[in-house]
């Protein structure tokens, strides 16, 4: 995968236990709901913010968050 392929954040809602670190590290595309669980921006991650997105992915204690190429991510949602 070249870093130029548009990427999108994808969450495994079962693995996620709502630590909320991701929203702290990447508030540009991750907000928390009223119960502390992340709501992801459905837009692709702008290349300039990719480092921040990766930091959020790596910080997740339950490995629930990942970056996927947009096409695969769209399939995951359907």
């Amino acid at each position, binding site marked *: 995968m070249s870093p130029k392929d548009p990427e999108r954040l994808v969450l495994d*809602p079962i693995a996620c*236990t709502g630590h909320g670190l991701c929203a702290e590290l990447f508030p540009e595309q991750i907000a928390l*709901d009223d119960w502390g669980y992340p*709501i992801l921006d459905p837009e692709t991650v702008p290349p300039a913010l990719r480092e921040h997105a990766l930091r959020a992915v790596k910080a997740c204690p339950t490995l629930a968050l990942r970056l996927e190429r947009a096409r695969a991510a769209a399939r995951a949602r359907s």
Partner: protein
Amino acid sequence: MSARLLAGLSGRDPLSLERHVELHGPPPSLERERLLRELEAAGLRGRGGAGFPSAVKAHNLGRRRPVLVVNGAESEPMGMKDRVLLTRTPHLVLDGAQAAAHALAVREIVLVAPQGSLPLVAAALRERRALGRAPAEVELRAAAPGYVAGEESALLAHLEGRPAKPRVKPPLPVERGLQGRPTLVHNAETLAHLALIARYGAAWFRERGTQEQPGTTLVTVAGAVQAPGVYEIDLGTPLARVLETAGGPLEELRALLVGGYFGAWLDASDAHVQLADIALRPLGATVGAGIVFALGATACGVAETARLARWMAGESAGQCGPCANGLPALADLLERQATGRAVQGDADRLQRWLWMVQRRGACHHPDGTARMIASATRVFAQELSDHARRGPCRACSVQALRLPRAGAAKAA
């Protein structure tokens, strides 16, 4: 109009294999391409609730040899259609499974149904073996209790001996299903239709129903009607006529719950609308699992919605935060509104949470629950604000919806 799926049924006895063959002829055995072509031309859509095109499911398999799972779990508490099919005309479902198995080179079929339905299916299999008409190996398994246990990935988890909870998709079961093998999961009624399409063809199938949703469908009519039960209805039939088929309303109706517990409330004045997704979608509903519940004017839509929301919250698998937290929060809020204890901001909070829980679970349980509640806020808007201000009404204690004990298995 004559019955298709329920043809030849009278009294309470199941249709014998002899009588079944007299009616429909021997089980069809089309080759792969031919069956897929007929299914596609017929436009058959799954009858389990999601309405996914059956031909697409088979296409997604590619050339791999799948396991076939017949889903007769019917975890929708009001639903009776798959139970009726499996206990009264089991050979039609088995024909469908057999036809699919033949075309797709299936060696192993697993049929899942409520415990009480299994003895009659087992008897039907014995009849077929006696006549040398047994399909590939058919394993019978009792469904797990719980509302989400009928969801296909939860069903497969149960078959693998794990708790019957949905998992994250992809991979879809056609890619990685039972024990990692490609798995085709079809609802029992879907396979019964497949059996008839394989016999009589796509053009015959399309003689009934609508252009977008061809064929007949089994509908469980429940609530305030003379003769609640399972009826075979042409898709596209006006809801009012569906109610007439079940003997008509017992009293003046206030609303209809269409699709199932994950469905949507419609105002009784919308009963002219057709039972078809294209007509129901503008009202927020779909045909879903083929359930039409009639709420009489002597019951209370607000109280019923609050009870149903609480029940749906209790049926969450508890795996995903937005569902495990959001559904109980919504149920609390609806109970406050229903009993005149609403607090400042509850009306806005309700809308916010309905939006917040949607499309954020591994399965569609939170989406369906939010849809049902959202429809109630439209249909029962006046009653909701009356209850929020004045507290419970006299009809609040009626309890028209049948809500089983949380996690209870269906008896039959």
